[in-house]
């Protein structure tokens, strides 16, 4: 898929021959995100679609209590310290960003008066600045007015290294200046194609200056407002017990009419995903449960009880398998999986091709994830010479056997293939998670039939995803041959995901394995394409570059994508919830209501 083809597709959408949604689905299948796809369409002049969600209630309040269940309770409520999506969601009940991403990748204004674009002059033509016009008449929960000072303050707060804010990545390369009480300008040092990062979505929630000013920098953890948030959101803070529950009550002075519908909100945390689904879909004790990572088998069974349904939201998460191109079993200068080594068997393309043919995505989709894991047809993951015309991915044990035979890997007496004394025995690790273990089992069986022996390993998530230098089991160290996982943070822009294949991001002992290139794969062409995409302002050209990079990484078999992992929530049948895979579940909390 190159730039020319992309423009052809866009023209089809313009002419009405392809729907917006179909275009976006295709782009997602090719490794892009809905926001990028929407940006491409907008840039090319395709009319912006209306947000589909219809809010029916005609007055504020009266809806009773909204009870939601997060099986990991938020542990803090300051969005700038949010360690995971659970903390973001907890904060999102009270705080709001300037704009949020909807399910189609379009920006929806929340605290902004309108969305900046090249047409209304908000986005500068040279890509070096964005001007936001703020909504007037918005009040903080304590009655003080929301102004541009608050926005500028958030930038100062996040960029102060002593605050150790996790949102710093979105704010440290920009400068924010106040033009007047309700206008700010975000300045970039170089042309930035993806400007919708600061003040937008999960990392854009705004905290009040008048409560946090005295607590900037090193004193940031002492602010009382950390535990008693005062925001602009639809609900006012009532109570918080870390890891257990958060409570809010209706904000009678909310800046949009007739909202919110509910009189109070209660978010409970803890427990496991299955019982969370049960609490919504079987006993009705709760109205909504977040992230029910449960086999579809169980979900369907629960839906039959008629009280709730599974809400499946497409996002950008791909469960993928990484192949180690270095040798994890040899130590060089105190480092295993060193970039100076080469993997004895995985560096042979034939072996990697064979492994790709041994992942039965259809079975994983049908029998494990069901609706919650989609092996889309458009996934480019076959080497060119094996790509069949109709389906883009393939599962064939016979072909795998052929490939390996042809490359000289012969079966030994124990059934395992070997060449020059090197056996095809691999250690395959992932985090502890029932569907993942089942996926491992399926792949292991297929590999066995092709003469490859897999030893399965499952590691506790807190250890696997740790950055502890002394811990041999982290995913960045990659001290094994294969590993499988998926990143959980929503990324509206693929640039942040793509840099994990850049050669300057190699994870090594020197940088304490903080580098993001875990497969240790290097390619000059990839690096070139990445640098080009960083500054390319034409979204169609940029998208084409990303797709090229995606193709390079997949064709070189640095990664094997398995299935898409949409987000799944359990929703009570009467509850109406606007969904978006590119932002928090609470991205439009103000519009939640119950049908009577």
């Amino acid at each position: 898929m190159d730039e020319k083809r992309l423009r052809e597709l866009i023209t089809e959408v313009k002419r009405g021959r392809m729907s917006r949604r179909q275009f976006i689905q295709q782009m997602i299948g090719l490794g892009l995100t809905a926001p990028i796809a929407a940006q491409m369409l907008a840039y090319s002049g395709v009319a912006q679609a209306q947000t589909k969600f219809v809010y029916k209630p005609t007055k504020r309040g009266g809806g009773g209590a909204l009870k939601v269940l997060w099986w990991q309770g938020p542990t803090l409520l300051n969005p700038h310290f949010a360690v995971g999506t659970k903390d973001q969601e907890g904060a999102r009940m009270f705080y709001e960003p300037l704009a949020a991403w909807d399910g189609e990748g379009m920006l929806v204004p929340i605290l902004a008066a309108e969305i900046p674009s090249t047409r209304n002059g908000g986005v500068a033509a040279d890509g070096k600045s964005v001007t936001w016009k703020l909504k007037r008449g918005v009040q903080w929960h304590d009655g003080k007015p929301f102004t541009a000072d608050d926005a500028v303050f958030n930038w100062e707060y996040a960029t102060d290294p002593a605050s150790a804010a996790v949102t710093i990545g979105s704010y440290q390369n920009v400068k924010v200046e106040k033009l007047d009480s309700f206008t700010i300008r975000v300045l970039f040092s170089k042309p930035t194609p993806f400007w919708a990062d600061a003040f937008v979505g999960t990392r854009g929630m705004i905290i009040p200056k008048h409560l946090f000013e005295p607590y900037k920098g090193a004193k940031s953890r002492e602010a009382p407002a950390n535990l008693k948030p005062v925001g602009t959101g639809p609900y006012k803070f009532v109570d918080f017990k870390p890891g257990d529950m958060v409570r809010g009550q209706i904000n009678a002075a909310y800046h949009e009419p007739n909202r919110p519908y509910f009189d109070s909100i209660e978010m409970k945390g803890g427990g496991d995903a299955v019982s969370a689904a049960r609490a919504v879909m079987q006993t009705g004790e709760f109205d909504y449960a977040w992230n029910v990572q449960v086999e579809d088998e169980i979900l369907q069974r629960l839906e039959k009880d008629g009280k709730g349904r599974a809400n499946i939201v497409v996002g950008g998460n791909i469960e993928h398998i990484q192949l180690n191109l270095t040798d994890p079993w040899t130590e060089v200068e105190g480092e295993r999986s060193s970039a100076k080594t080469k993997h004895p068997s995985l560096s042979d393309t034939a072996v990697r091709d064979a492994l790709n043919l041994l992942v039965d995505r259809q079975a994983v989709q049908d029998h494990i994830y069901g609706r919650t894991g989609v092996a889309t047809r458009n996934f480019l993951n076959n080497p060119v010479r094996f790509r069949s015309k109709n389906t883009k991915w393939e599962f064939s044990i016979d072909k795998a056997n052929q490939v390996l035979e042809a490359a000289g890997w012969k079966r030994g007496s124990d059934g395992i293939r070997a060449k020059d004394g090197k056996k095809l025995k691999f250690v395959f690790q992932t985090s502890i998670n029932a569907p993942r273990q089942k996926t491992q089992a399926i792949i292991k069986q297929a590999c066995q039939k092709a003469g490859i022996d897999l030893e399965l390993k499952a590691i506790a998530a807190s250890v696997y995803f740790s950055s502890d230098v002394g811990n041999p089991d982290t995913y960045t160290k990659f001290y094994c041959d294969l590993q499988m996982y998926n990143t959980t943070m929503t990324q509206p822009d693929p640039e942040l995901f793509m840099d994990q294949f850049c050669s300057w991001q190699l994870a090594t002992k020197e940088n304490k394995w903080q580098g993001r290139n875990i497969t240790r794969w290097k390619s000059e062409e990839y690096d070139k394409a990445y640098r080009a995409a960083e500054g390319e302002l034409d979204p169609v050209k940029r998208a084409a570059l990303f797709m090229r990079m995606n193709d390079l990484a997949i064709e070189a078999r640095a990664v094997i994508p398995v299935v898409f992992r949409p987000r799944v929530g359990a929703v009570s049948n009467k509850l109406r919830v606007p969904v978006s895979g590119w932002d928090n579940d609470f991205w439009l909390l103000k519009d939640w209501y119950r049908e009577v």
Partner: protein
Amino acid sequence: MPRATARISLGAEAWRRFRRHRLALAGALILALVMLAVALGPLVWPVPINDIDFAAKLQSASWHHPFGTDDLGQDLLARMLYGGRISIAVGLAAMLIAVVVGTIVGAVSGMSRGAVDAALMWLTDLFLSLPQLPLLLLIIYLFRDALKALVGTEAGMFILIVAVIGGFRWMPVARLVRAQFLSLREKEFVEAARALGATPLRQVVRHILPNSLGPVIVAGTIDVAAAIIAESTLSFLGLGFPPDIPTWGRLLYDAKDYLDIAPHWALFPGAAIFLTVLSINYIGDGLRDALDPRKVM
């Protein structure tokens, strides 16, 4: 002068009395059957344990699959026979470690006083206070590779798990034994033995220990069940055997979300653990009665 009666050793006497205890024999029989099944079962029932067959998913007992299948279509009988070896071995080994270490510590502590008692009780309190999880993580990370190099992956894992599970269960046994010793030490028959010149060791082994076995045996049976379950908890945290090894505790854990959909999946491993525990307990009862000099059989 009357002829001296033939001397019968304590062991042979105990065995004779054990044989007359019906329930103990029943227990021994059940345990023997279970152990035979897991030892020879895979030879008699040669179905592979990880044969994934989605068409046969979550079926209850049938001729083809006597114990039914799980959610990947794998045969449960085969998995239970295979995993049973590990479960029973872990259960028994961990229990033995806990009981032996606990009894020794408790006995030494109960017999001596002052510094030794205080030191051993300090050690017991330390182990009781330690949070198991971080300690487990630490031990496994420290010793996993060394053991792997020494005895191979599976044996190394087995040693680690047994040591860790047993190592966290000896404290109650030690305290129970010590409590028994504190009271038994002053009893008349022990005093009599002391007056006759019995060394402390002889007092302990011949007199006090056999009489303090009651709680030890109960603790032993409870520990077997606890060890089997503990192994599954370890595996849930990524510290036990790899996730595809179907130990009984692991099967119970995998089945817990399907209790209303496929109850057979949990029923069989649960029943197996129950039977094992039951039989060991009856054997224990028999042992206790056999060793108790006051009980008339």
